[in-house]
């Protein structure tokens, strides 16, 4: 399992893996926003957490369609299917590796972008924390979409369309927790805990459904 984790991590970090492209995309999306809404710093600091979250959500979707496709093409997916370790575990490990390679860099890059958005320290910290907790959920949901579309030659766009509606709760609670940390009356803990609950919930549902989809599309 650790070997699989390291293998996936190495593959996605090295050239052609495309994990770092996600961070680049994230920065580009965030950098484009001020051109759309204007350079008003007050406005930017107000919508900053939301912008960071939407950027991260889109960037998370970028590499998802390749989660199982490369394995399918070179045949290692069949090896995984025939392994003694349950497929659910392999899928879970693959998701974690994918998140470490593409989700974690987004979390690390978010404070810098928060500065661009004129957010204060508390808002930056809260956004970073919610991203850290929330982005795994997007990966787990995305794994279902990736597994469902694995047999399609051009599944990339379809995966995004299928996954985005399902990821709405993550976005809602991530953004509301980030705002609750800044605005006084709203409590921070309830939305944050619900966000954690959603992540844990999809950590179970996602790999199960993805494994079922992979098994049915392989025969």
């Amino acid at each position: 399992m650790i070997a699989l984790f390291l293998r996936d991590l190495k593959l996605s970090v090295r050239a052609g893996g495309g994990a770092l492209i996600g961070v680049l995309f994230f920065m580009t999306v965030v950098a484009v926003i001020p051109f759309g809404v204007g350079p008003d710093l007050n406005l930017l600091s107000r919508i900053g957490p939301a912008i960071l979250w939407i950027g991260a959500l889109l960037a998370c979707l970028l590499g998802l369609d390749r989660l199982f496709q490369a394995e399918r093409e070179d045949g290692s997916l069949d090896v995984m299917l025939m392994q003694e370790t349950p497929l659910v575990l392999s899928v879970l490990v693959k998701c974690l590796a994918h998140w470490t390679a593409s989700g974690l860099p987004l979390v690390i890059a978010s404070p810098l972008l928060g500065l661009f958005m004129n957010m204060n320290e508390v808002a930056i910290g809260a956004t970073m924390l919610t991203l850290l907790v929330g982005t795994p959920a997007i990966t787990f949901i995305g794994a279902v979409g990736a597994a469902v579309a694995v047999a399609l030659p051009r599944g990339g766009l379809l995966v995004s369309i299928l996954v985005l509606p399902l990821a709405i709760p993550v976005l809602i609670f991530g953004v509301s927790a980030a705002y609750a940390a800044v605005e006084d009356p709203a409590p921070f803990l309830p939305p944050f805990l619900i966000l954690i609950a959603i992540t844990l919930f999809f950590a179970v549902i996602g790999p199960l459904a993805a494994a079922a989809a992979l098994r049915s599309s392989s025969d």
Partner: protein
Amino acid sequence: MMNDQSLAIRKFSDLANPTRFLGLAERLLPWFSGLTALLFVVGLYLCFTTQGDYQQGETVRIMYIHVPAAWLSMMCYTVMALSALGTLVWRHPLADVSARAAAPIGACFTLLALVTGSLWGKPMWGTWWVWDARLTSVFVLFLMYLGLIALNRAMDDPGKAAKVSAILILVGFVNIPIIKFSVEWWNTLHQPASVMRLDGPKIDPEFLWPLLVMALAFSMLFFTLHIAAMRNEIWRRRVTSMRRQAARNLGMEGRKA
């Protein structure tokens, strides 16, 4: 005589034979469509003869289309989820036909609910669209329908498409309560519920009767369309396999010659 007996339907699992299902559909469809038409005649008559609301005037009649369509949009997804269970658990051969046939119908009802809601919102709230919790979750449901249809269209092998979309339907079904709950949370956080209070005036029997009849009519319409769409899907698959067979035969003859 023997043929009749072998095609008799005793259990639900007997419907697994598409020919039996087609026979049943043939017998049911005229009755269903007749009943639908009758219910619509009665329902529409009631809709237009009952009084308008003293506040909303004539626009309240939009409700008789809007509310049943919204109900049906949810019921249709439930039917799809049950069919998905049928595909994955019992491997019922007609379950995937049912799920596939229900998706476009559900999308149409959802669109109808959205459009009529929008038309109703313009005179009542002064705007076409509000990011109200209920509207938003119906809109998300619509997006999910479209995604499922797109997935089904993208795959050429119906067997594979069936299993894979059944998984997605079930994941979506689990997710719908979460989406609904979170959207309500989101909306109450940003703006207090002020715009849409359907339960404000207790619904009057004057409105209730046409509404119930229309809901029944819409349900019958759904079942009629669903059975017809399933029949079409079976026929379509038969035609495809016959075409393949014909092509194969042609190829064999060509090789011999």
